[in-house]
């Protein structure tokens, strides 16, 4: 399970890197969202939080699983939600102002 998730994390990071490096602003925004998902999966894998059928409560034995990774992931999901939303709005505003979503064309923008 751990191996599988680690590989999945790697694939997500690769996809996100590709998207962030593309010239289309929507793809970049999507890339940042996927990047944060990769980080969440990584926390889950690293935090040994991968036992099905057990409750996230502090304690010993197979019936329990460390609750901390879950708390971390929930917090970081909320944060990435906020950042993605903000990024979308900024991207949209810039698109409105400049009339293009091509990042290469943004390079020449200068209002001074």
């Amino acid at each position, binding site marked *: 399970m751990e191996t599988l998730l680690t590989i999945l994390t790697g694939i997500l990071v690769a996809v996100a890197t590709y998207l*962030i490096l593309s010239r289309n602003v929507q793809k970049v925004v999507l890339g940042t969202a996927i990047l944060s998902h990769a980080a969440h999966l990584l926390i889950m894998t690293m935090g040994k939080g991968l036992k099905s059928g057990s409750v996230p409560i502090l304690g010993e034995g197979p019936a329990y699983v460390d609750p*901390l990774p879950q708390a971390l992931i929930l*917090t970081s999901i909320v944060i990435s939600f906020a950042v993605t939303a903000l990024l979308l709005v*900024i991207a949209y505003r810039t698109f409105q102002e400049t009339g293009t979503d091509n990042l290469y064309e943004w390079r020449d923008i200068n209002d001074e």
Partner: protein
Amino acid sequence: MNNIIVFPMAIPVLAGIILIFFRNNRHVQRWTSFFVMVVNACIALYLLSLIQREGIMRIDFGGWEPPFGILFVADSFSVILVLTTSIVAAVCFIYAFSSAEKNYEQTYFYSFVNFLVAGVNGSFLTGDLFNLYVCFEVMLLASYVLIAFGGKKNQLKESMKYVIINVVSSWFFLVAIAYLYGTVGTLNMAHLSERIAEAGQTPLLTVISMVFLTVFGLKAGLLLYFWLPRSYSVVPTAIAALFGGLLTKVGIYACVRVFTLFFYHEPEITHALIGIMAGLTLIGGSIGAVAYRDIRLIVTYNVVIAVGFILVGLSAGTLEALEGSIYYLVHDMIVKPLLFLIAGTMIAVTGTAKMNDMSGLIRNYPMLGWMFFVVKLSLAGIPPFSGFIGKVLVGQGAIDAGSYILLALAFISSIFVLYSLLRIFLQCFWGETIISTEDEMPMKKGWVIPCALLTAATIALGLGAESLAPYVKDAAETLINPQNYIDAVLYKD
């Protein structure tokens, strides 16, 4: 119960939220925000004296004891920075009163600055690594909004870059936290320090520390400062002053905390690397500072130089060097906003940011000119201003640690700072006066007063370094002896 420790973060958050309801009432917005910062400064002063009496204090949120719950820890280092932050933010508010456009004030400007300060204070006070990430994000989200404030094309473009770079660096932060948690099994800073000291800093942990260094390098502008100058030079003056004074300093604080509290076992790898990065930052910043003729860019490259200088102290790692770093950090948090405010005022009165288009301003605005002169001397480290003591102590520390190259770079960079600012002074303030008395734009009181307050602060910090000394010494001693911190967090009830 030490609930007071949480107030420097909680009060600005609450004030920021309440101000959303008073969108159209400018006076309520202005004076509430200003009052909050004054209250914060008072709390920080009180905490500082309390810490000298009772040692490092902590507050466990919701009564969950460490290492299980999250907590805030107040030691001298963090509280000194909280105090400086509050003062700087209050002064920037005064500047914003007279410079901010009306539509800014109606689009929640003051709320976001309050959130920014809350994030900064939270980052200084937190005793938990994940909480540090959350506070970083609070601060960054506010700064994302502030950088796009006004919605000019240029600002939007820069804010897009700024946000994406910070998203990526936050991702590195999360990854580093995940690895660290997987390796050590805790995120409480004191507990981490204890466990790493017990098990030894394995090569794996050193690699993880490198990931942390990358993150803080990006946030603080340590070597990875490529995003910084452009994005700081597009924002309105009051916001630029806050950014220059506070944002990179949080990265520096985190770097100092992490590399003195838990990754201090392999200094020949980690601290040497910090030293190399600091040296390169000094070189790059110096080149940038003399290369441009746009005042705002020169000023932002000065921010970069200061980052390098402060981390030279961390790299040396002796008690004196750390004391010097703390002094210089406080000095820089006061002087950089002042520099940004003066530069912004110069741009506001002349309508241009190009050095070549200004001349002889000292005849029109003598106060501004002389304040710029003071800042210049202070940044170059000339006594009796505040930069002096920090530079001397960092220099001593570097000699003790035997890092002569860094020492040379640090002091050569001071000359570059002096040269870059002297060039502005000679070009813009001296020379033939080209603005006639009739065309002169009247200097607003709201522009001069905040500058004068910060100038007074840098002089006071220079002359009164002696009275600050016990606190700085205490702060540096805590950094040198992590056991004090661990005892206070884990073994004191």
